[in-house]
């Protein structure tokens, strides 16, 4: 493996630093998650037909509710 010069070193991961790093990195609750997204296009199409509403589709490379 090629050794790289490290200018920006990673913080130490210890029992003492765990909580801070965990809270910094864990998934956060965000405003867009207040929308009751339907994760399947066909299921959404069926619901839009039943409720006589337009579909709003958020289509991304990778699932928007997971990793995009």
């Amino acid at each position, binding site marked *: 493996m090629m050794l790289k010069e490290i200018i*920006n070193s990673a913080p130490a*991961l210890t029992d003492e630093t765990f909580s801070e790093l965990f809270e910094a*990195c864990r998934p956060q609750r965000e405003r867009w998650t207040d929308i009751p997204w339907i994760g399947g296009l066909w299921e959404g199409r069926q619901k839009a037909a039943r409720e006589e509403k337009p579909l*709003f589709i958020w289509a991304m490379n*990778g699932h928007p509710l*997971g990793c995009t």
Partner: protein
Amino acid sequence: MIEFVNERFIPVAVNNSRLQRQADDEGRFLRLISWQGRYGYSFDEAQARLEDIDHGLNHQGLYVVTTEGEVLGSRNRLFPGGKLPVHGVGSDPDQFLWMLRRALANWENRKTQREALKIEDLTYRDPTFSWTGYPEDGLVLHLGVRDLPRQVDTRPSGMKREAHNQDYVWFRREEVLSMVPPDAGVGDVIPFPEGLVRRLVRYHLADYVRGETSSWSSEAIRDAAMTLTVTEETSEWVNMRLSGSAQLFEDGRWYEGACRERGLDASLLGYLRFDRRVERFVRFDVVAVGSRWGGTEYNVRQDDLEPAPIGIAMTIAGREARDRTAPHACQSRGGLERYFNA
């Protein structure tokens, strides 16, 4: 805006890189929309291209449509292969709201869905993709990933510092049970099952911060090990401390040759509690911290290739519908099988 979307639309979030290749009615419906909304084809022209699943074009976008596929509004990224030059995806909230309002005005004048419709259930799904797999009685983790603070920040000024991403991690019930021997006692050091180590490092210790990236090849794992140490136990539960490390390195050619390698050198630490009565984890908090370098086709690291700190945290996922989203690595053709046999 949230209330506006909830009241006036049926909001759907989907992975187009999968749908645009699906050889079934759901894939055709996505292509009907995106050929119009992203590439500027008419409804009839789009209809003529529904079977084209080898187009090699990106169908990403924000679309408002009727259930018959009539596009009422859209916002899409510029894509030079497209028929028409189009504007950026809805990162500007004012322009995004304008598009939604204009789409609602178009809804009043729509040509389709003028009467209530019944859309039947799908009777066929493209079998080359996975349609099941959520481990109902296993373990699902919600993962977050982000850059950590740097001593020297050489990233371009326009690059978002607070970028972050997420994913889900799946373990089946038998895999969960394989982590915890029934007779585990305080002080025992238990190797984390090798196949599960490989799944975690190949598919989840990856630089997704700025966008999706390729999984690590099996050969990229230069070193990876994880152990569980039993710290407390009763007849009802077992507390364990996870520790480990992973070194990943891969040669390649990304950003037209500007990047020829990528790597990750990380330590892991976690605290777990296994409830013996229900045979489930009730705590599974794990952090991986280390240095990443390089980039791949889609993770937008071309201006940030030098080693820099990254943090990844995982915890037990919630029970909302969105928490059933499959891990990113499972969403490609044959992905589920590869994922569970890392």
